């Protein structure tokens, strides 16, 4: 076991937790939060390989910065979408938004 192992394990665990939220929880807000968690897991991987990896320079750090910024934008737009959906359907269950089914 090395620190890298721990980081990667935490990352995988967080990713799976987020995936469970996305797949199982019916609430759109929780689904979005699950996506955020998966993004965090990815960020953690970048950090881990920047710190303990074979030395790829600072690209990992910079990438994480961009990732955080984009995640913030994603959360803002996602929540706005949730509110818009709630206004139309009076619910935020993901399953309710199926008007486009073929």
């Amino acid at each position, binding site marked *: 076991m090395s620190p890298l192992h721990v980081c990667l394990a935490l990352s995988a665990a967080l990713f799976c937790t987020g995936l469970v939220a996305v797949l199982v929880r019916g609430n759109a807000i929780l689904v979005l939060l699950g996506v955020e968690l998966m993004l965090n897991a990815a960020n953690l991987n970048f950090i881990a390989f920047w710190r303990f990896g074979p030395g790829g320079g600072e690209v990992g750090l910079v990438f*994480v910065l961009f990732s955080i910024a984009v995640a913030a934008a994603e959360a803002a737009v996602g929540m706005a979408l949730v509110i818009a959906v709630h*206004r139309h359907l009076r619910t935020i269950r993901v399953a309710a938004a199926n008007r486009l089914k073929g």
Partner: protein
Amino acid sequence: MTLLLAVLALVCLVPAVAAVLVRNLIHSALLFVLAWLGLAVFYLAVGAEFIAFAHALVYVGGVSMVVLFAVLLTRPGRVDPLPPPSTQRAIGGVAAVALVASMLGSSIFWTRLPSMEPIPMVSLRRLGELLAGPYLVALLLVGLILTVALIGGLLLAAPRRPSEGGDA
């Protein structure tokens, strides 16, 4: 080092798992905040100081507020036209994830990772030079995305004017 990181990983993971399992949305959101704080501490322990503070600022200061706001604004209405979600689907989802998790876990723990010395710290100034130098275009693009997201969020969440015939 490994032990410290393992403890911090648990501190971070437990609230995350709890957040997914808890029924109360507010509790769930607050537990997510706790998980994010844990992650920030984890970053700090790993040595990514700037990332840790940026992460805390964005997630604890920004995203959590948006989430809480959304939760309060979208409390379930009187009439929910859908049947409750089926348990079978939930089991299916968990099973799928379990598959992925087991594979990821096994691959991580069975791989012999080369144990390398941590690389020297990157100073904040260097990070700034990187952002303003090679990654300038990316920085500008992110700024553009944030602006578009801000305006898009406003347009999406703003109630329709009556004159536009919206059904809000």
